[in-house]
């Protein structure tokens, strides 16, 4: 059932399979981030098997940011995403089943198989909207935030973007609009230095988001350690600030994109990027891979315990499915 030297099942066995969630007493941010990495691996293995018609945009390397956002959102908060939303949907829904069915366009999907991958927004998980048009989601987030003012509702709106989408004029317009009207919006820039396969240096001049925010009087915070524990504490602080001082606020994370833009990694026979669950959960080294950063932070023994627990539950689930198959 497992490959020699790895606690993880052979990728082929996972086709059509799912994994079990962590038990209730093992739901620390660190453990949940490892679970998120595992789920991204599972989807990547399924993508290799061409299990879905829809393109899925995974986010290996962004797990610390995603986990911190999930841990920091208040009950009344809403999340507005981009096409690279798979990891956020996994974390917020805390389940893989509905997403896999959605990617298969099944009526049992998280959004009845209607939204597919790039527009997937599971409303019951606090995700209001996900756009595959770069720069499209900022103004919609502002509208959602304004509705909270009109309805005298609590909560903030978190809108996620990348360094590519933040090049769009809509980003600047939304910053101005949110600042002008004091909207409780968290602009969250996942700066992974890539827009598809172009690095920032390859496609444009530098944009100093800190100075851009300063110009329109929007508070700006930056994080670059890839340490999920630091990120959770930092974003919870940002959220508290928003409650006390009002909005908006802009947060920039420096991350690494460790997988291909869309679809499986590797994406072609000579692809220099390669990800395989059989090789373990890590796909890079610290500080680029937040899972490697976590492993160094909590120690190999603690990390191994969580990994083994997830592996046992995954293998048990796969075996169970095989027995009933």
């Amino acid at each position: 059932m497992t490959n020699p030297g790895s606690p993880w099942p052979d990728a082929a066995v996972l086709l059509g399979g799912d994994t079990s969630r962590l038990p209730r007493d093992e739901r620390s941010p660190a453990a949940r981030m490892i679970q998120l990495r595992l789920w991204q691996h599972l989807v990547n293995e399924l993508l290799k098997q061409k299990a879905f018609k829809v393109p899925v945009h995974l986010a290996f390397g962004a797990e610390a940011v995603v986990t911190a956002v999930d841990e920091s959102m208040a009950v009344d908060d809403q999340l507005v995403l981009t096409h690279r939303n798979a990891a956020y949907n996994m974390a917020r829904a805390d389940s893989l089943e509905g997403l896999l069915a959605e990617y298969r366009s099944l009526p049992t999907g998280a959004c009845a198989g209607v939204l597919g991958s790039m527009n997937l927004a599971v409303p019951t998980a606090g995700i209001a909207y996900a756009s595959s048009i770069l720069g499209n989601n900022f103004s919609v987030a502002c509208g959602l935030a304004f509705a909270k003012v009109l309805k005298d509702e609590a909560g903030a709106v978190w809108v996620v973007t990348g360094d590519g989408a933040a090049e769009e004029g809509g980003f600047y317009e939304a910053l101005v609009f949110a600042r002008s009207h004091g909207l409780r919006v968290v602009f969250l820039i996942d700066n992974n230095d890539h827009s598809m396969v172009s690095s920032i240096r390859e496609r444009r001049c530098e944009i100093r988001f800190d100075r851009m925010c300063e110009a329109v009087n929007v508070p700006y915070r930056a994080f670059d350690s890839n340490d999920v524990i630091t990120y959770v504490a930092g974003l919870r602080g940002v959220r508290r600030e928003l409650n006390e001082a009002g909005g908006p606020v802009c947060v920039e994370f420096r991350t690494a994109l460790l997988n291909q833009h869309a679809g499986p990694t590797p994406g072609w026979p000579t692809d220099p990027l390669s990800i395989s669950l059989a090789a373990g959960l890590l796909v890079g080294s610290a500080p680029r891979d937040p899972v490697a950063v976590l492993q160094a932070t909590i120690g190999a023994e603690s990390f191994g315990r969580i990994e083994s627990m997830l592996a046992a539950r995954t293998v048990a689930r796969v075996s169970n499915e095989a027995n009933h198959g």
Partner: protein
Amino acid sequence: MGKYLSSVNEIIAREVNRLECALVYGENIDRGSYLSGLSKNLTAGSRRRILNVGNCEYTHCGVGFGVMLAGANAVLFVKQLDFMLLGMDHFVSTYGLLRAGQGLDRLGSFTIVVAVYDQGHQGPQSSFNDVASMCSMARVSGFTVTNLADATAVAEQEIHRPGFRIIALTQKSAGEDVFAPQGVVHSGDCAAFRYFVGSDLTIVCANFSLRNGLALRAELAARGISSSVFSVNPVIDPDWRLLAADAERTGAVLVLDDSKGLMGLGHRVCEFVSRCRSVQRVHLVNRPVDIPFGVDLEEYAVPSAEAVIAMLGLRSTSP
């Protein structure tokens, strides 16, 4: 009798002022000329905000859809239809996604009220007037209001309805006496309005060509030809049964479309009436592709009565 723009403004403002939990916004909507009168008479309420906003039309459109997604209401006043080309991404992509994911019954209402400037002297750039083509790209409903009857029906029904629509007024009629027809009959979805019933010809007016259609009807009447007159709106899945019944009765249809679109609402009406029983003569009059700058576009909007009589083979009783 009141003027067109001020009268239609009063009707629209009355309905907007009835909205609860609403964001009413636009550039300079509460000061100066009030967008040449388009946004006068708006009042704030306990959960209705009147908001003067900066110049970022793309964001304004997205904000409206965000408000709508949250179940609240939004009305965006825009000075000129040209500016709304910047919002096309939201009309097409954002609204398409919201309709797929949420269902209309869970959404609030979002209405854009906009003026169309196409008198011909603003410049080659500022003259976009094809409301129907804009609506067609996004599969949304639009309404080109030209008189008290259609303005009242559209405002009362649409501004309170969940979902998105565009209500357009024409600047070229701004200072004219408003047309206040009596006995107007319209379809439930405001896709077709009938103003007159005749026996020889059905005149169908698309975009803002009703004034031309009414003038032509009078000219034809002086020559003994009796015409029905309709205006139509680019509504999703339009109910044009009124129009079909009239066309089948007269057997001759003249479609006027003063938009600059090449494949606009006028073409769609022609295709529709051509499939009606007993309709043998259909003619579309629209603007030529190449219109020189600075001319009075009215010259291009409507043929003479004699030309209509000839092209449709009508029998004039005048000498």
